[in-house]
């Protein structure tokens, strides 16, 4: 049964918001990479990602997202992650192109969770669902975290988000928080001692960047200077003082937003934040409208995945959170990140086209 063909329209809001963010991203990479080889590569990734997004948008997601395919992707992901962990690397090299499977893990995990969530009838999280979700989550999270703690953390946040969507009883949440506080209070020093030096340094640097300005606090301090010195209107395209003179480390990846904020000022930086907010809001709005459980879960998952990426990255640069090495969607350099995010948007578009249709 189908209700009218108009509902098959591509959602213009999503397209517009993603397009605007891609334009910002292209401009930012043109500046951060000095318009060099990396900039051209990033444009190719944009093109490829948009192509995949278009195809996915035109495909019927229900035919695509079959349990068989999702589980196949899941198994392949686990194998690749295992392989990389054994080789102690984060990168999968395929014909001269480096792929970061931890990025793909986010999307795969969203799809797996969505599948599980969409297949059950209960309104509240029952023990069985919890066990299944956890069982599926624990392997990729452990495998990713072994090589890249930050990305592992991202996966964990996505897992928590799905627990919330599945309806964790409030009592559980309270109990978990209480237990965490207790563990933290009692075992805090021991955990602190167990942390690796670079992890400790990151927390210390977050608490007091000035004291470690030449070592651990360097990155956060330079990021703050870059953002703050942008002022209202910024230094202008390719004119950022911190970026141009290489004071910003990782300026085309982790600190891409600092470059943007420095060159375009509060006007440009708040525009990007508002674009992200609008994009996530639009995805959540669509998720509310969509009644089909799988589609709704995928949309919510994509929205939350984007949200965590944006929050962790920008929050770190603005010194609200410790700095974590995660890319900012569309603005940071990175083929895997671009592809995953655009594919996710493609799926969202496909789902949104069919939000009023029924099986």
């Amino acid at each position, binding site marked *: 049964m189908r209700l009218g063909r108009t509902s098959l329209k591509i959602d213009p809001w999503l397209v517009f918001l993603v397009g605007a963010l891609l334009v910002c991203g292209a401009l930012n990479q043109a500046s951060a990479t000095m318009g060099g080889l990396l900039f051209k590569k990033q444009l190719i990734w944009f093109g490829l990602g948009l192509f995949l997004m278009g195809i996915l948008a035109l495909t019927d997601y229900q035919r695509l997202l079959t349990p068989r395919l999702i589980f196949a992707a899941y198994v392949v992901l686990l194998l690749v992650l295992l392989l990389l962990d054994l080789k102690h690397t984060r990168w999968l090299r395929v014909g001269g192109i480096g792929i970061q499977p931890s990025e793909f893990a986010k999307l795969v995990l969203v799809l797996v969770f969505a599948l599980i969530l969409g297949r059950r009838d209960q309104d509240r999280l029952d023990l069985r669902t919890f066990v299944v979700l956890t069982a599926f989550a624990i392997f990729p999270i452990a495998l990713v975290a072994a090589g890249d703690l930050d990305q592992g953390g991202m996966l964990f946040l996505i897992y928590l988000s799905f627990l919330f969507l599945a*309806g964790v009883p409030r009592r559980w949440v309270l109990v978990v928080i209480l237990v965490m506080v207790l563990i933290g209070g009692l075992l805090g020093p021991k955990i602190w001692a167990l942390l690796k030096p670079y992890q400790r340094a990151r927390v210390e640097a977050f608490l007091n960047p000035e004291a470690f300005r030449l070592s651990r606090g360097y990155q956060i301090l330079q990021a703050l200077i870059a953002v*703050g010195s*942008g002022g209202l209107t910024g230094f202008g395209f390719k004119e950022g003082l911190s970026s141009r*003179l290489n004071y910003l480390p990782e300026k085309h990846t982790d600190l891409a937003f600092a470059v943007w904020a420095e060159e375009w000022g509060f006007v440009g930086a708040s525009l990007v934040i508002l674009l992200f907010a609008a994009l996530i809001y639009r995805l959540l*709005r669509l998720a509310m409208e969509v009644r089909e*459980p799988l589609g709704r879960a995928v949309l919510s998952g994509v929205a939350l995945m984007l949200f965590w990426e944006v*929050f962790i990255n920008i929050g770190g640069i603005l010194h609200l959170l410790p700095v974590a090495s995660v890319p900012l969607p569309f603005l940071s350099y990175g083929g895997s990140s671009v592809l995953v995010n655009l594919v996710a948007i493609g799926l969202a578009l496909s789902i949104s086209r069919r939000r009023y249709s029924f099986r």
Partner: protein
Amino acid sequence: MNYRLFNTEEPDPIERRLRWVVFLVGLVFFFLLLKLFFLQIIKGAHYRKLARKRSFRVFYLSAPRGNIYDRRGILLAGNLPSFALAVDPKVIRGTQGDEVLKRLADLLGESFPALKQRYLLARREAGTNQVILAFDLDRDTVAKIEARRYFLPGVDILVEPTRYYPFGQETFHLVGYVSRINAEELKRLGPQGFTAEDFLGRAGLEAQFDRRLRGHKGRRLVEVDASGRIRRVVAEEAPVMGESLVLTVDIFLQRLAHQLLEGQAGAIVVMDPRDGRLLALASHPGVDPVYFVKGFSAKEWEKVRRDVKHPLLNKALSAYPPGSTFKVVTAMAALEKKVVTPATTIYCKGYYRLGRRIFRCWRSWGHGEVNLVKALEVSCDVYFYRVGEEVGIDYLSQMARACGLGRITGLGFPGEKAGLVPDRAWKRRVFHEPWQKGETLNVAIGQGALKVTPLQLAKLLSAVVNGGVLYRPWCVIQLLNPYGEIVAEFNPHQEGKLPVHQRTLFYVKQGLVAAVNGKEGTGRAARMEDVTVGGKTGTAQVVGMKKRIHSKKLPYLKRDHAWFMAFAPAEKPEIVVVVFVEHGGHGGSAAAPLAGQFLRAYFKGEHPS
């Protein structure tokens, strides 16, 4: 089939949770925007300042000092370019800094620990400015460093104008010298824009005209990237060269004076009596000022410091007992107070008795009957004991002061001595004792506590021979800007007139001419055949002795000072020469010949090469 579709009023649980998500996400984004606003708008200026402080450096560009020329335009002090090695202390730190220093040590051929220690010491003084590690690099080293610039972040080669003095020690006391600012001065002058690499004028004209000579520093604002390499010059303000001095001094006469004093310690002051301009101001020995510019080695410095001839002391501006040269003042006082007339004679029997004390004439068998002119000619002590006693210390000291003694001449050099004219008030103030009459006698022949500088004598003699006008000595006639245009001109300055009649001056001058040309004249060694020279010898006792012993037999530091002051031509004086030879012995034999040689060379137009 989803039945919930038909139950839209009541949001299902997932939708409820999604609403929560929207709310929480909105809240987070609100905080992100808030923090962004705080960082960029509220603290924007603060971070912009930090960014500038981090990425911009100001380098000062030294301005070349103004040149100093003699009256013919011959360069006495100028600048040569030299290369200095500077490093940025903000970049040279930690292990990366050590790497750079190691490479530099290799290039300079030094050991790394030595260079590092030098760097650490220099950095303490330089603060946040550039640290200069080496001066006077040769071109090979400069080329090597420039070629490896990329591997030496934070390293810079500065082209600095360096002071040089073509005539070395011969202009040392006149022109002075410059040397690098020290830590204490830097603390004091730092706020005025001085940096550790700056030179300050230390003596002579370099010190007196330091402000005019110094010029204005240029500034260069550069962008420095994270690894300390200079990326771009943002702004540059060119340095402005200081003003140049044109002197009245003639470098040929200045050199001649130095050559005459070769091997001895002393001073020669040459003045034009018609307006007080200096033609030479020599003090021997001097030091080659280049040592001050480049720095002394400990050994060299020790040698200079321990030299009994005191090369650092400008003897032309230092005070010594004038000996018989002071008799000119006593003679004027006597005539003015009408104690004697020019015709009055006094009998010299070789000594003069005052109460129970015997005051000896330098010629133990006496001069016989002497009048004023004769007394000046033979430098008879008894004559001046007698008139000195009658004039009294009050009038005598008053006359001495009116002649410009006992105060600085106004030349303007730092460190000039005022000398000393003793009188009753001075005695009471310093010794808390009343004045003794015998002291008047000593002062009358230029001994005792009396002290004058060679420059004061030149000023005094000029006044005596030019008709009584006291000119302030001066040696700078013009200031030129870097384009060679005159920005200031100096004129002779009349300080006052001697309180004496022309008649008095006439007789005194006659006595001075007789002292050089008379049969028994003490200054015959300064005589010339075609030009009439006038002058007065002086032999100043350094140590009081009962019997006169020939100076040559005494240890150097106890020998008498030898003086001679001369003017020529006597009819229309155009040059005054004061020769002072420290511990030189007798004025007539040690100083007068030098004055004679000088005048002969001057009037023949002979110039030393």
